[in-house]
Every structure is written in C-alpha cells, then in structure tokens.
C-alpha cells in the first residue's frame, strides 16, 4: 500500500523536485503495475505512468486530503489506463491483445533455478492471458483485489463505485475465469 507523508506532499507541492522524486520512487511501482495489467502493454504502461505523475505534480497543490493519497493516485492510474486501453482498442477496431508476458529480465532472479524461472514465466503468461479475456471494468477490480491486495472499500473508493458493484464485478470475472481455466490441469 502506498504511504506518503503530508510533509512530503507539501514540499513537492511547493516545487521541491527531490520530494516529488521521493513520491515517485514510493508509488511508481504500484502505478506502473496497475497500468501494465490493465493495458497489457509495457509501452502503454510507461505512457500511463508518465501521464499519471505529470497530472499528480500539477494537481498536488489542489489535493485537499479529503481522501488518502493512495486512493487518489490509484483512481488517476486506473482511469488513465482504462482510457488508453479503450483508445487503443478503438484505433485497432478490436480488443487489444495483451503481451504474453513481461521480459524475463524483469522476473528472473539471480539464484532461481531454471525450472522455477520457467514456471514463473508460464504463470506470468497465464495471468496476462486471464486478464486479457476480461472486460476492463472487471479487470480493474481483479487487478486491485488480487494483484494490489486492496480491500473492497478501498476499491470502491478508488473506482468511485459502490461495494456491491465491486462484489458483482469480481464475481462475474471469477466465474468467467473458472469457466475458461477451471478445466485445465494446473502444473
């Protein structure tokens, strides 16, 4: 969960670039991950991350602490990512296929044995494939719940929907995943 102090935000709002860089270091991983899982493309995730932080920088002065910074940044990230995904789908006239997986460079850890690395890569492919078959609204809820570990209430606030909508989107998404992947033998 993103945890940014008020002092850091005030300093960044006054134009302190070191403070803003600190905010970026703390929260960019979350933003980039959400963007990548929603758009399915590394290039699009980079574009979304840039747009989100430029927007955050320009709006820090007007942030009134009515909600948590994490809720605010998740909302901007999710909206920006979904909008870009829709734009790309419209440009190509169909649903954008997801990348199979992130490059092995991003995931291979020194010391991992080959079979574990391969298993991880396979799982990464599977996750991308699973997310790619869901509509954006259901995908957003799955990403926030299963990958970001947010609570229902936090998801509802970030997406500006009510709790039962969160439940119904998760339920429909999982039903679909079970129907598509439930029969497969997992390694």
């Amino acid at each position, binding site marked *: 969960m993103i945890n940014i102090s008020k002092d850091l935000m005030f300093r960044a709002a006054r134009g302190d670039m070191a403070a*803003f860089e600190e905010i970026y270091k703390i929260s960019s991983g979350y933003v980039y991950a959400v963007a990548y899982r929603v758009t399915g493309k590394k290039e699009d995730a*980079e574009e979304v991350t840039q747009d989100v932080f430029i927007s955050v920088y320009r709006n820090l002065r007007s942030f009134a602490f009515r909600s948590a910074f994490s809720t605010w940044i998740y909302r901007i990230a999710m909206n920006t990512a979904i909008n870009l995904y829709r734009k790309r789908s419209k440009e190509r006239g169909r649903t954008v296929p997801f990348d199979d997986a992130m490059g092995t460079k991003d995931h291979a850890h020194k010391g991992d044995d080959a079979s574990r690395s391969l298993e991880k890569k396979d*799982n990464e492919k599977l996750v991308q494939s699973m997310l790619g078959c869901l509509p954006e609204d259901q995908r957003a809820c799955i990403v926030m719940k*299963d990958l970001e570990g947010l*609570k229902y209430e936090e998801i509802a606030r970030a997406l500006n929907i009510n709790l039962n909508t969160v439940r119904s989107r998760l339920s429909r998404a999982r039903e679909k995943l*079970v129907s598509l992947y439930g029969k497969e033998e997992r390694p």
Partner: protein
Amino acid sequence: MKCEKIEKLLLTDHADGELSPELKDEVARHLENCENCRAVEKKIRSAAIMPFSNVSRPVPPESVWLNIKAAVEPRRTENPVETFLSKLRSALTTKKPVFALATAMVLVVALVSVKAYHDRQERIVSYFIDDQIAFLDSLGNGNGTQAEDIGIPMEDMFM
C-alpha cells in the same frame, strides 16, 4: 444456507477474507458437510485466485522518470516570465492586506499632490489677473507708469 448462496460467497467475500466472523463460521460449517461446495471452492482457488498470488510487481524503466522530470521541471526553471508572474500572483493572493494598505496610501499621496498642484496653478493665474487689473486701472486714471509725468512737455521731447 443454501449451496447457491454459499457459492456466491465463495467467489467473493470468502475468497477475499471479507466475511464477518459469523458468516465465516457458517460457510466453514457448510463446507465441512458439502462435498460439492468444497469442489467448487477448490476450483475457484486454483483457476481464478492462485495464479495471481505468484506474480512479481513490474518496475518502470528509468526513462519514465526522466521523461516526467523533463515535462515538469521547465515550468519552474526555464521560463523567467512565468516564474515572475507566478511569484506576483502568489504575493498578491497571500499578502492581500499589505498590498491593499500600500495601494490606498499611494492613492492618497497622489490625490494630495494633484490637489496641491491645482491650487498652486490657480494662485498663479489669480495673481496674474489681479496684476493685470491693477495695471489697467492705473492706465485708466492717468497714473500709469508709462504715462508718468517726466517733468517736460511732450512737445519738447521731440524737438
């Protein structure tokens, strides 16, 4: 609780740890006694939940931060006019009473100066008119400077 309701909970609140303690116990008791629901739970976990629990968080490349920095920094450092206007705006909004007082004082000084100048001009014109009136009067009664008696008759002056 019926299996249909249990299955709904298995897809959401049960899987995500959002059940109240009472409901949690109730679902647990149901699962102990219902083989069908246990199979459904296993399927949901393996097909729709477990794959997400084992993924790494991707990290954005360094170029992303450099692009963001390049996009936001010039707003503060490369445009002196914008910086000056921004400071001026800030000063006007944050120190309003001080500026209002200073403006009022400048206005009072300006008004007093204009009034003093106007009075002075009026006095000069008034003196000039008085002077002229006095001069004309002196011409009229024959006591003017130029008509002063110099002691010899006018005819003798040109002879």
